[in-house]
């Protein structure tokens, strides 16, 4: 059973206010009567049963600014490919995000836009997808550079992606770049 503080925190995070989902940690702190870390830990334990978890990330569109921290609720375990399709993800968007995400994560989260465009084109993915990913909050564009933005930081397990990316071996029978 959720306590009042946990319920209030969950409501603040889940219901969208403004353009971005989630809630700022400052707002959550104001809504809690008990220490926020304790409430967050309790909430995380309880919603884990639903396959969800609360993550707190530093919301920084500019690579160097410290920004504010923001809490989001996300799926605890990665979804299956079929589930993603049912959630409205089409194959091409996912492929574009996979290519850009893998490249940026392996480059420390930031690279020149021209490099990203080149990588996308080498995989036959339209470079216009970058604009859509910027709009959706996955990427941030700044002075010729492309970096991972708030949504990527919240949704992508960067450590895991980097490990899987480095460990992946190209299939011998598959042609390059297909």
């Amino acid at each position: 059973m959720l306590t009042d503080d946990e319920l209030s925190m969950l409501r603040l995070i889940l219901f969208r206010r403004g353009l971005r989902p989630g809630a700022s940690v400052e707002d959550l702190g104001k809504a809690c009567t008990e220490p926020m870390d304790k409430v967050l830990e309790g909430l995380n334990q309880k919603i884990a049963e639903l396959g969800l978890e609360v993550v707190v990330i530093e919301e920084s569109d500019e690579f160097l600014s410290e920004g504010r921290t923001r809490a989001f609720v996300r799926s605890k375990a990665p979804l299956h490919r079929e589930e993603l399709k049912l959630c409205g993800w089409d194959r091409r968007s996912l492929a574009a995000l996979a290519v850009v995400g893998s490249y940026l994560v392996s480059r420390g989260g930031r690279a020149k836009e021209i490099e990203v465009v080149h990588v996308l084109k080498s995989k036959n993915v339209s470079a216009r997808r970058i604009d859509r990913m910027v709009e959706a909050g996955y990427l941030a564009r700044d002075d010729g550079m492309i970096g991972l933005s708030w949504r990527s930081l919240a949704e992508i397990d960067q450590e895991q992606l980097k490990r899987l990316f480095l460990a992946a071996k190209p299939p011998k029978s598959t042609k390059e770049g297909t």
Partner: protein
Amino acid sequence: MTGQGDSLRRGIETCQKALSGELLPHQVDAWELWEILSRASDKLSGPEEHLQYAMLLRLIVATVRLQCRWLRYEADELYVDADMARQKIHSLSVRTLSSIFVKSFHPLVEMERMTARALDVGKRHWDELAGRGFQDFASPETFLTYERGSEVESQVLREVRFQELLEDLMKEFLSSDDGSDVPYESFISKRGSAGFSEMVTRSYLVSFLVTQRRMSLKANGTGLRLSKIAVPGGTTQSVAVILRQRRDGVHAY
């Protein structure tokens, strides 16, 4: 511009190059920039130099922070340089990259707020859509409706009778002389001789036979065709479920 102003400007340009990725962060000597700043601190003249001084100070802080992050990143066991990353992406198929990505992807969960008015508009929209669907096909008055427990319903759905009906229809299908495939519409309408209610009953029964994989339904350019070639796989038993919807006092199945 004084020599001091020039050195401040050069410092600013160097930092901006590092921040924009033109230079690698460790190629910038932060101590040297700091010394330029120290030397200039007590000799500033005019608002422009004060502005340059403040900007250089801010950029040095940003560059040092970038150097910190860069050091952490390079010291990471999973450090990949740009060429290596490009090469790796080039060697992997998009499908493999997507599979890898999906394993580390945790979509956000959020709820949209629904106002009472939006809910009402949505409900009316769906009601209108459903109504349009019926009208396009036929007006509700043209449907034959069965009351639950009526004689007609029991004739169709009584368990033994239902199985018999299925078997009879299957026999009829197997004995048809139209080669291996039979046009769906022709079969359910008995080549146009069946009335509407019989046609509905036959299509209802056919759907069970298809579900049980005793016949297969194919779509081609000219329409739907029923095939005698059974779909591979174990046969399944189906249970008839009545779905009833009340629309303006008319029951439709």
